[in-house]
């Protein structure tokens, strides 16, 4: 039996309708991105006319030091956010899944995920200003880690739910101490979840514009990639953006596939 039980309930007509609808949804999701990808190879750079196939915009991208610099900044920030958020998120997930479920605590942990980014951003800006912090890349890391951590915890928790706790007790019964149990039993069991959480953390950090923008210090040394993109978009239709979009899609597809493979291999 491959079909989900619910699927059997549906008449063939409903099923067909659902499929058609889903096809449109995927078209809606991918159409715009596909269009940018095609345009990125258009020499004229305009959506209105095809000027021939070219790598011109990719070349311009690579020659633009401001973009490259901002990408490097984003990678540094994302690396540390991923570390902090994955570690914190895993602890959070372990703690929350232990003992009786608490709806109040669950809701509290949702706040960092759900709070509108502009609200968190200005709250943090006020906070840093009051403390007279000099802002820089590090303040972006501190700020992003808050909301990214909550997302990471959510991902690890899904994994923890499907995990048989009795093996933990068995491990303790066999005389293993806490560290051993964690490294040898718990972590391997939830590793796919942790990897997925790390990946999501990385993506969220790279994608975040609003919180980074308000937490960033002066100058190019704390300009991240989305801040650079925002500046470019505000100055109008810039064909280099198409090339950036295409590269981003390729990178994220690769990351996603790698993550899935890693998760599968990590499965005990």
């Amino acid at each position: 039996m491959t079909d989900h039980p619910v699927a059997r309930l549906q008449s063939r007509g409903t099923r067909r309708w659902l499929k058609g609808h889903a096809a449109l949804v995927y078209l809606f999701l991918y159409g715009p991105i596909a269009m940018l990808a095609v345009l990125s190879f258009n020499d004229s750079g305009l959506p209105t006319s095809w000027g021939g196939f070219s790598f011109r915009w990719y070349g311009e991208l690579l020659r633009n030091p401001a973009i490259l610099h901002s990408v490097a900044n984003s990678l540094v920030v994302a690396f540390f956010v991923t570390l902090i958020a994955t570690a914190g998120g895993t602890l959070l997930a372990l703690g929350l899944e232990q003992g009786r479920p608490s709806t109040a605590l669950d809701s509290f942990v949702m706040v960092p995920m759900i709070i509108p980014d502009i609200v968190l951003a200005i709250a943090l800006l006020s906070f840093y200003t009051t403390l007279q912090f000099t802002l820089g890349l590090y303040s972006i890391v501190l700020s992003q880690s808050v909301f990214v951590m909550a997302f990471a915890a959510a991902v690890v928790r899904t994994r923890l739910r499907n995990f048989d706790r009795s093996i933990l007790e068995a491990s303790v019964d066999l005389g293993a101490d806490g560290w051993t149990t964690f490294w040898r039993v718990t972590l391997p069991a939830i590793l796919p979840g942790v990897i997925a959480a790390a990946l999501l953390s990385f993506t969220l950090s790279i994608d975040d514009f609003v919180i980074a923008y308000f937490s960033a210090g002066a100058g190019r040394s704390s300009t991240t990639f989305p801040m650079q993109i925002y500046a470019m978009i505000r100055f109008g239709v810039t064909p280099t953006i198409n090339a950036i979009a295409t590269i981003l899609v390729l990178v994220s597809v690769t990351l996603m596939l790698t993550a899935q493979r890693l998760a599968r291999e990590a499965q005990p």
Partner: protein
Amino acid sequence: MTVRAGTIPVAAPADPRARERLLLLAGPLGWIALFLVVPCLLIGIYSLFERGTYGGIEWNFTFENFRRAADPLYFGILIKSLWIAGLATAIALLVGYPAAFLIATSPERWQKLLLVLAVLPFWTNYLIRSYAWIVILNREGAINNLLRGLGLTSEPLPLLYNEFAIVLGLVYAYLPFMILPLYAAISRLGADLIEASTDLGADGWRSFRRIILPLTLPGIAAGSIFVFVYSLGNFITPDLLGGGRTVMVGNLIYDQFLTARDWPFGAALAFILIGIMMGLLTLQAFLINRARRIGTYD
């Protein structure tokens, strides 16, 4: 070697689980408290004082900022934002539910792929995805060119820089946030439950309305809260796709902090958004608690 308490699952005497739990949670909850709760309380304090002529805070206590938020101009903007966010949420739900349903009820092999495909666009930059719509919708853009090319229109349609474009942009940006929790809720439905309902002779539509819909309510609530609250606070989409012609509460907050330099008023507006968010979270917690009581949520 001795075991330090505070390390992960360890059997120690005297209510070990509670202590362990506390130790696990102390770090991350402390982080959230320091970088989220304290800053939010801080803007709560700011919102109760006056602004200086050139920005900054004058430490004179006042409710003026909240009173001002209630004046018709700003209240109107709040209502408009609620309306746009509500519309985006409703459309995302209507579009996302059947898609999530199809994914969750597909053969397992397909499920993973379809889910990944639904989430993947969210992995490219949000700004770039908005930019794509500028290219598509503008007067000389892809759609207008296509329509004119086919001879369907002679004058370009005004697709960009209006509320239509804003709602479209919001739905596009946040659809994955709707599909994911819905997928989780639908795939959680027990087979026996569904079969029980068919055995009772319920037809497809009725079993959907009577059983599936109520049981997936927590998923609907979670997805809707995400889309609604994110849309409500968004200021980039009104700016890029709305052409600055529609002001939403997110723009207003942004302006108070970066343009008007009226931090107390901006803080008051932000605090109102926090209030709306807390209200919705409470509502969601209520729904989940109810689902837990009847045993359909773990």
